[in-house]
């Protein structure tokens, strides 16, 4: 079955013609407005996109529509009836489901259990395993994802966890589906599968509210696009009347120019700062690479090709079975991340919530964690020095916070990502390993991060950029390595460094790979 024939589950509550109307909604967090007098209409059977900078209020609006938050002022109504939602469960009962930006997976449960979480009650208290599995298989086939129902969700990659979330939302009979950056972690072919699903949902008379930073995606999918800036609606326009330029203009209040800064490749005789030889580690098979001073090396490949595993092995976070890593000519040794950081290696990990942030702690503590030695004497942290250092880093990385003591969980997703970047910059590394450095970051801030990477490279840092966004890899890197099944299968430079060549290298023999995986 193809994704094009995505059919309604039999029990679907079909109520076409019900428009969702958001009227005059305001929401403040501790006096700071996140939304101000927001009004918009999501017509049934359409895809309505929400765009805006990090912290513009997109997720907050999504949470209000789905009952996670209650508005301070204004109302949300469906088909003329006002919804006074108190909880996500209320919203579910009204046919509103959400795929949240910050994944909510139960790591100790299997994929199938996660998908049907909260919906198993129909089985009179007992979870009917076989029944659940059959339903799961049907769903997986309709959706076009390859996932085994029995895997533990906690052991999946971020992308696969995202798929679990999507399947969970689609397993409910929803008339309104809110997707908050659903494709941020997906690979290209998975993204197109999801796009097909979104289109078919709309065709069935359901509404999709799509939050995304990918403007091409927004333009291709949406019927109507609403732009938010600083919590206000700038405008709602039909997608046919918009271009990337006008959207960026609306989001930022200015135009952006080129998406990527100009490349300045290092001189040919620049010294090698990172050299990896014959590295063998979990998920990494015999990888060798070199990075020179001032060079930006991109690593492309499908999700699961071993890119993150390679980064973590170089960083000595995972046990290396064979091979060597040399930093500025000296063997790095395998004493773990703290030692790697001391020697001048920094890693921005792929999953900010699990591997990056102390979500319950302040912005300040999160940024300075790796280099407290810079702002302390004899182990005593100097408050003033720390504040000064963190404040200037936040500016360089364009993080938007109301206070340095603000808890990280209160920041928008993109700003959380930038906190990790600020931490890595504070490390002052010789070599930066950036794994999906701009996941969930808005276009304007992306450019700011690119500028920062390029600037640091120009000052002599070596950079390894791993990204599922091919454009990002090609736009930034001086040289691209393509990985497949734990190996580096191609090295592309100059004219050979283009989309076709990368995809050809990344995809060859993948059918083989997929049989192994499932």
């Amino acid at each position, binding site marked *: 079955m193809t994704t094009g024939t995505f059919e309604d589950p039999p029990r679907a509550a079909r109520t076409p013609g019900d428009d969702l109307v958001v009227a005059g909604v305001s929401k403040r967090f501790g006096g700071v407005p996140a939304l101000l007098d927001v009004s918009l209409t999501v017509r049934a059977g359409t895809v309505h996109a929400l765009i805006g900078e990090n912290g513009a209020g997109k997720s907050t609006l999504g949470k209000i529509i789905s009952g996670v938050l209650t508005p301070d002022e204004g109302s949300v109504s469906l088909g003329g009836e006002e919804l006074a939602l108190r909880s996500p469960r209320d919203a579910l009962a009204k046919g509103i489901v959400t795929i949240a930006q910050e994944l909510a997976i139960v790591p100790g449960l299997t994929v199938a259990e996660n998908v049907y979480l909260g919906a198993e009650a129909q089985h009179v208290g007992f979870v009917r395993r076989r029944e659940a599995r059959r339903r799961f298989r049907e769903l997986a086939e309709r959706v076009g994802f390859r996932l085994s129902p029995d895997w533990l969700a906690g052991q999946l990659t971020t992308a696969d966890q995202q798929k679990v979330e999507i399947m969970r939302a689609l397993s409910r009979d929803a008339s309104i589906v809110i997707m908050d950056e659903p494709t941020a972690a997906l690979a290209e072919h998975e993204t197109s599968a999801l796009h097909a699903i979104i289109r078919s949902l709309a065709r069935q008379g359901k509404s999709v509210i799509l939050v995304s930073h990918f403007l091409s995606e927004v333009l291709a999918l949406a019927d109507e696009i609403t732009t938010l800036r600083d919590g206000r609606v700038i405008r709602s326009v039909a997608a046919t009347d918009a271009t990337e330029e006008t959207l960026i203009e609306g989001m930022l209040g200015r135009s952006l120019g080129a998406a990527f800064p100009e490349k300045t490749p290092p001189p040919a005789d620049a010294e090698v700062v990172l050299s990896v030889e014959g590295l063998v580690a979990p998920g990494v098979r015999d990888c060798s690479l070199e990075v020179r001073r001032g060079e930006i090396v991109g690593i492309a490949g499908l999700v699961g090709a071993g890119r993150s595993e390679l980064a973590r092995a170089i960083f000595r976070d995972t046990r290396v079975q064979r091979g060597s890593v040399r930093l500025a000519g000296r063997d790095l040794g395998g004493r773990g991340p*703290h030692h790697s950081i001391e020697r001048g290696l920094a890693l921005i990990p792929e999953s900010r919530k699990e591997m990056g942030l*102390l979500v319950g*702690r302040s912005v300040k503590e999160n940024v300075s964690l790796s280099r407290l030695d810079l702002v302390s004497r004899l182990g005593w942290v100097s408050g003033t020095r720390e504040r000064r250092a963190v*404040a200037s880093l936040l500016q360089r990385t364009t993080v938007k916070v*109301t206070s340095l*003591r603000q808890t990280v969980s209160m920041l928008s997703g993109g700003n959380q990502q930038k906190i990790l970047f600020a931490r890595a910059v504070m490390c002052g590394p010789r070599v930066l390993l950036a794994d999906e450095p701009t996941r969930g970051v808005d276009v304007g801030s992306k450019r700011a991060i690119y500028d920062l990477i390029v600037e640091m490279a120009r000052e002599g840092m070596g950079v390894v950029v791993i990204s599922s966004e091919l454009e990002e890899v090609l736009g930034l890197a001086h040289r691209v390595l393509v990985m497949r099944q734990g190996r580096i299968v191609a090295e592309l430079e100059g004219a050979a460094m283009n989309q076709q060549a990368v995809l050809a290298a990344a995809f060859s023999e993948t059918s083989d790979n997929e049989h192994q995986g499932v």
Partner: protein
Amino acid sequence: MSATDQLEAPPGGVGRGDSGGPMTRLLKSWRLAGIFIPFVILFVVLSIASAPFLHTANLINILDQQASYLDIAAAGTLVLVAGGIDLSVGATYGLTTVIAGELALHGQPVLAIVLAVAAGLLVGLVNGLIVTVLRINPLIATLATSFVIAGAALKVTSGNLVVLSATSSFFRFANAQFLTIPSAVWMSAAFVAVLALLLARTTFGRHVVAAGGNAEAARLAGVRVNLIRVVTFVISGGAAGLGGAIDTSRLLSAQAGSGGSQLAFTVLAGIVVGGTSIAGGEGSVVRTAIGVLFIALIGNGFNLLGVDPLYQQIVLGLLLIAAVALDVWARRRRR
């Protein structure tokens, strides 16, 4: 403020608002007040209800009795914040009292104190290594070691009570008066202050918080999570040893069975009532000290007012539930 505005803002711009939003500030002060306000209320009520309560002798006596508990609870706070738990402190305390007692009995007052603390540190080290190297859940690990330690303590004294005389110089260790306050109180106050600063103001403290808040993230950020955890257990063991030495000198007797699970649980109760989260990642030594004293005040008040001690336990239990409920509520608010 948009990202571009902020780029142009002066360097001090972001730091200015460092005091936190009104909401966070309120929540923070509320959490600190959480134990402080009931403490003050209880103090006032007892002052009114019982004349002897406010006597200096009674107040000093409370502090003197709580000296070892304050030490052990302050250290236990670090363990909890780092994501562990130490149930073996009661047994360690018992072991170190008999070590101190036996040595003092044989005319070795200095050695008594040194070896008691050293034994505590050693137990802490073993606990820490079991938890980090063998990767055994700290609750189980320290539960298990507490049996071993209790057995060893019985072996030292063959189960007998050690009784010391007030003429020995060892007596002065905890009972020397300075400004009418006994040295036991001074020592525990100093110990609590040092640990409070250690947790709140040093890089070590930040690493403790990080290790308990998100171990994986902390490790990738360069925190030596296992080392930090071991150190917190070592501090906790050392505190139990110090507490054991203090109480042996204070009470002039030592018994293998003193301390035990009663002490471990009372200390844990003080920490939790003080608002330190059992889930790790946050907590405060000062609040723990107030928590311990709060529980002590309840006991003292019940004694002075002649209420059946039975009710004391019930009140303590209800209090614990209230404290944990408050913690859960505060966490929910923050999300």
